[in-house]
Structures are given as C-alpha cells and as structure tokens.
C-alpha cells in the first residue's frame, strides 16, 4: 500500500495545538485589539503622569522610526538571507523625497537660499489643501500620506536600479556593493550642481514634523493641546504599526515563505521553481520601500535632514539593532530598537555627566568598592578557567592578574590624587559603555534576545501549554 507508513506516535501535541489556533483566529484578533487598547492607555497614562519633556517620549518616537527600518532590514537580511548594507542610502532617499515635497512654498526661499528657492516650488500639503477647498488639516493629512508613500516608492525605484547588477553577487560581495552604492547616493545628494533640487550640502528644514503636525491639531482642539506628548508619540507609532504589520503579513504569505526558502538554500529553492532574480528583487525593493518610509519618518522626527548624516554608521546601527533583537525575529527588531535607542539616548546618559564625590570618605569608599570588584572579577576569571590545559590556564591567569594589577594601581593612584571628580565619567563615556555592551551581546548572546522566535499568541499559548503538560506528566509519574 502507499506509504501510509505512519508515525506510530500519533498526533503530536504541536499539530493539534495549531489546529486549535486556527479555529480561534477570531479570538486572536480580539486579543490583539485588547493589547493595542492597553498600549494606548499606558501611553496616555505616561502623558498624564510625566512631564512633557520627559525622555520617554523622545525615545518612543525614535524607537518607532528605527523599528520600521530595523524590521525592513530584517526582512532582507534575516528572512531572505541577503546581506545588504545599503539601508542608510535608502533612508536618505526617503527622507529627501519627503523633505523636498513638503517644504511649504513660503519657506522655500529661505531654505534653498543658495539655490534661488530651489526648483520645486510647491508643497504637497498645500496642493491637497487647495483641492479640498482650503482645508489645511485635510491638506496635511493627504500631504503626509502621499509624501510617505512616494518616499518609499522612490527608494524602491533606486533599489530596483541598483538591484539589477548587484543582486547576483554572493554574500560579502553583495554587502560591500550595497555599501558602495549607499556612499555613492550620499555623495550624489550633496552635489551642489543638483542643489536646486536637494539643496546640495545644506540641510533641508521647515517641513512638517511630528511635533509641528500635532501642534497644528492642538491649535484647533483643546483636548489635543492638553495631551501633546501623547499625540506626537502616537503619530509615529501608528505609521510604524502599519508598516510593520504589512511586513509581517508579507512574511506569512506564500512569497514570504519563498524568501525564507532562498535564505535556507538558494539552490533548492531554485529547483522548487522559485525564480531567484525575481524574488530577490522583490525582497530588495520591498525592504527598501520601507527603509525609505523610515527615512521620511526620521525627517519628521529630526525636523532637519542633511545628506552627510546618512553615513554607513547609520546602517551599522540598524544592523546592530537587528542582531541584538535576533536575526529573523520581527518582535526582536522592535524590542532591539527600543533597547538600543533607550540605552544610547536615555538610560546611560548619566555616564556622560561629570559628578563629584561629596567628601573624602565617599571617595575612599568608592575606591575600596572598585578594587574589590576588580579583584573579584579577576578571581572569577581564573577560577572559571581552572579546568583548561595548563598552558592556556597560565596565560589566562597572567593576563587577568596583569589587567587587575594595572586597574588597581590606577585606582590607588587616583585615591592619592587630589581630584574629587568621579573617574571616567565625562562626555563620551556613555557611548563607550554602550559599545562594550553591544560587543558583549555580539560575543555571548549571538542569537539576540529573541533568537528567531516571535512574541505572538502561538508562542504564548505554547509556553503555557508546555507548563500545563509538564505539570500533568509530573502528576502522573507521582
């Protein structure tokens, strides 16, 4: 008989559970909506409780921007396996498309001061306001919407042109080719000869930003005026939510599966009927589309943009976010974006401020504490490596002891000196600590926070079901 050589284990818990999930899709949607409402409520609460200049709002806005770009990069690198380092270039195109189209005509002369007001003489929000009988609110709405979409479209267009020669390159070569193109784009946008369009090496400004748009609403509604932080944070989060949802839908579609196939085994994917050139191009253009929107969002966040700032270091930051969150996990990219922005802009800020000890007693206490920590760490390293070969162990022990000795000597030297400033704490230390944390994550937590898992109802249910089954089995054994 046809190989109904079935598995004698019977239905595995996983497939049964997934049948359960699919029946309850409606429940899932309801649950998602509840979560969204909770998040909105939390945000509203934060607004009411905290001062409007609190860092949390800046962090959340910037997180939304970086989350979109990180997820778009994850789509390309993590889900399709195309290692591309050109994100900054596409963000630049998106940002400039938005800026060029949205600077109010009245401000053009001052922004494009070296280029006779520039060659673009209109702005989208004014065009739409005109279409809708002078209604500025509607004008801004459609203006921003169309500008964002065009930002993505132009980025995708450049991606198409770049992708034609570049996508057949393998691995590292693709990375450096995309990096090269990003640099070429950056040079292009600084070129003074096309300054009439791009303002050359000068910045673009005066276009609508998240804050200015909400200020516009506040003018017409006292409710909005009383909750400006809430609304100005909500706006980027809505845009981010829409973009990320689209990407997630793509990942769960047939095309999304084919992208994953290309990542896993290109040769097998091709043998299964997947046209590599076409699918790689689709992934590349889609990723760049959203990177372009991310760039436009960055413009709306920063209120000014300058081509020179879209260096390869920006791409590296996004890449680090993707890695921290877990390559292949959308939830990871979002979490990673939040942690990255929060840590680098907010939580570690205190490391940049110079502080002074209250008195000699505090200073001595601090030094003793520091010496103890260093000695403990050195001892830990030595003890942990006790099991290794004698030659290796000796080398590690000597290095650990030497480093500890140098640090302790420096501490004692500091103790004796008259300085009352807390050592190390000054401008720039924050980024050093941050970079060290990143190196630790890269070296010891390679798979990132989420690995390639997602936080969704399936994984949550699976987690609880595992606990329940474990309990049941434990009970039966007893």
């Amino acid at each position, binding site marked *: 008989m046809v190989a109904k050589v079935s598995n004698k284990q019977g239905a595995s818990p996983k497939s049964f559970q997934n049948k359960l999930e699919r029946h309850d899709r409606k429940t899932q949607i309801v649950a998602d909506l509840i979560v969204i409402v909770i998040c909105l409520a939390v945000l509203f609460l934060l607004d009411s409780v905290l001062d409007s200049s609190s860092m949390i709002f800046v962090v959340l806005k910037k997180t939304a921007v970086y989350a979109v770009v990180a997820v778009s990069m994850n789509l390309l690198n993590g889900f399709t396996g195309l290692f591309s380092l050109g994100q900054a270039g596409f963000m630049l195109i998106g940002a400039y498309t938005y800026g060029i189209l949205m600077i109010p005509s009245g401000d053009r002369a001052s922004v494009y001061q070296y280029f006779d007001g520039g060659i673009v003489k209109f702005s989208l929000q004014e065009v739409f306001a005109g279409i809708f009988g002078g209604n500025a609110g509607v004008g801004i709405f459609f203006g921003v919407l169309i500008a964002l979409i065009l930002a993505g479209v132009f980025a995708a267009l450049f991606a198409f042109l770049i992708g034609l020669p570049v996508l057949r390159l393998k691995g590292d070569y693709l*990375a450096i080719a995309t990096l090269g193109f990003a640099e070429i784009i950056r*040079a292009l946008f600084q070129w003074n000869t096309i300054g009439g369009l791009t303002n050359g090496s000068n910045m673009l400004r005066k276009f609508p930003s998240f804050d200015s748009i909400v200020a516009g609403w506040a003018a017409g509604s006292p409710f909005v005026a009383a909750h400006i932080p809430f609304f100005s944070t909500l706006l980027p989060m809505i845009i981010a939510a829409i973009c990320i949802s689209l990407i997630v839908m793509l990942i769960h579609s047939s095309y999304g599966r084919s992208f994953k196939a290309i990542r896993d085994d290109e040769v097998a994917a091709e043998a299964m009927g997947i046209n590599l050139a076409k699918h790689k191009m689709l992934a590349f253009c889609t990723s760049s589309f959203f990177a372009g929107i991310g760039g436009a969002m960055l413009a709306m966040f920063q209120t000014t943009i300058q081509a020179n700032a879209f260096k390869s270091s920006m791409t590296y930051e996004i890449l680090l976010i993707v890695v921290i969150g877990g390559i292949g996990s959308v939830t990871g990219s979002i979490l990673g974006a939040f942690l990255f922005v929060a840590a680098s802009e907010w939580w570690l800020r205190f490391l940049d401020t110079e502080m002074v000890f209250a008195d000699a007693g505090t200073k001595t206490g601090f030094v003793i504490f520091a010496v103890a920590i260093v000695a403990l760490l050195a001892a830990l390293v030595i003890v942990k490596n006790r099991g290794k070969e004698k030659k290796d162990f000796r080398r590690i022990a000597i290095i650990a002891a030497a480093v500890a000795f140098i640090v302790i000597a420096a501490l004692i030297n500091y103790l004796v000196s008259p300085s009352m400033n807390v050592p190390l704490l000054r401008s720039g230390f924050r980024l050093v600590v941050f970079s060290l944390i990143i190196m630790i994550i890269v070296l010891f937590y390679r798979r990132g926070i989420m690995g390639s898992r997602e936080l969704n109802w399936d994984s949550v249910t699976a987690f609880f079901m595992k606990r329940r089954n474990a309990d049941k089995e434990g009970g039966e054994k007893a």
Partner: protein
Amino acid sequence: MDWSVVLPYILSGISVGGQYALIAIGYTMVYGILRLINFAHGDVFMVAGLMMIYFSASMPMYYSIPLMIIFTVLLGYAIERAAYKPLRTAPRMSIMISAIGVSYLLENLALYVTGGLNQNYPGIPWISDSITIGGAVTKRVTIITPILTIVLVVALILLLKHTKFGMAMRAVSRDFDTAQLMGIDIDRVISVTFIIGSFLAAIGSLLYFTNYTGVVPTSGAMPGLKAFVAAVFGGIGSIPGAVVGAFIIGICENLIKGLDSVLMVNGITSQQFGFATFSDAFTFVLLIVILILKPTGLFGEKQTDKV
C-alpha cells in the same frame, strides 16, 4: 596641456595610494584566511595615529615610533583573540557584525579620549620636510611612501613564497579545514596574519598622518573603506592585487579632486563642476564596476560551488 597643475595631484595620488596599499594588505590577508571583512582595521589605523600623538607628546621620536608600532600590533592581536576567535565556528554574518562592533567601540573610545577635538599629528623629522619635484612643492613623505610600500610588499611576498610559515599561511587561505587536518597551527597562522596586517597599518598611519595631519575618531573609516575596495578591486586574497588597486584608487581620486582646476586652467571648462564631492564616491563607482564585470577582481580566482 599644463602638466604643472596635474603633477601635484599625481604625486599626492601616488603617496596616498601607497598608504592605502599598506592598509589594504591587512584587509586582503585577513579575508583570504578568515573570509572576514575586518571592518575594524581602518580604526586600528586611526588608533595608531592617536597613539603616536600621545606618545610623542611625552617621549622623543625614537621611542614613540617603535612603541606605537608595538602597541598597534598588540591591539590587532588582541582584537583577533577577543572578538574574532570565539566566533570562528559561528555563521559568517556573526563575525562580520563583531568586526562592526569593534569598529564602533574603537571610534567611541577615541571620541571619549580625545573629546572629539582634532588632534594634530607630530611632524616626524626628515619625512615631513618639504621638497620640490618638477615645480611642485610637497613633503618628502610623498616620495618615501611608494618606495617603502614596495619594499615592504616585496619582503612580505618573499616571506610567503620562500618560508615554511609562509607556505602554511598560503595553505590556510586556500583551504582552511584541510590545512588544519594537515597539522598546521591555525591559531598561530591567524595571529601572525593579524600581526603583519597591523604592523603595515601602523607604518601606513605614520606616512598618512604626516600628510593629512588632523586625526579625529572617524579618520580611519574612509581610508579603511577605500583600502578595502582596493583589495576587492585587485582580487581579494591577492597581495599584489591589493597594492595595484590601492595605487589606482589613490591616483584616480586625487586626479578627480583636481579635475575642476585642471580643466579650468587649461581652458576646457569655465566653471566648477564640483567633482571633488565625487572623489570619495569614485572609489565606490570603481567597486561597483569591478563587482559587475569581474567580481573576483583583477588578479582573483573563480570559486565554484558544488551542487
């Protein structure tokens, strides 16, 4: 055609080309063995420059120079041990991300230590003296660089071809796994590769910063990237290729910088086209062109994938 206008650009092109070559060799050797683009290499170059500044502020030249070289080599060695060795069995992207992380760390450390202010490179006696060639005034380092570069490269190639260890290094870059099975000490080969690369980068920084005397934390990024492009252009894994690529890039980028003045002086154009903005981008145009036409580079070899 007024050559006196072109000459200074060609000279500085040869000079910077040699400096790029010294950095490029580090990239190409490491890639040949580990298949890793060592993004941190350009920053090691920059740190070498900073070290020189700090050492020479408190010590005479004949101490500072060797000390700088030794510490740069130690830095390269330490980076390999700490950030790359643990990831040798990890997927390729992990180690590349580690390299990016190290680069990020070095730049932030430099920013912290220098406070972001431009640091001035000390004038090294004799090589930073001005000399005149064919009517153009330049520093002696412009002549020293290509000569020194060629000498070092020849020495390196001799080392690779005629010593047992050099053969081991070539074997590892051919086939990593088989070389290990043949009893070659991989760790030593890799460490020596990084040591040689860092040594050359230190020399390169000495020459480069004598010419372009401002050192900022990002001073290593561009030269590093360009040196890497040179390595790819010449054929990644090929040392002569990296050197040739570096000289071509150095000369072309300087010619482009001067293109505006050259064209104007010779009456070909009447206004500035702003080509200088593209002198950096030129390197990348070259990269794209070679990747499309011959991805394995000028002197590279094709790699086949068994199905």
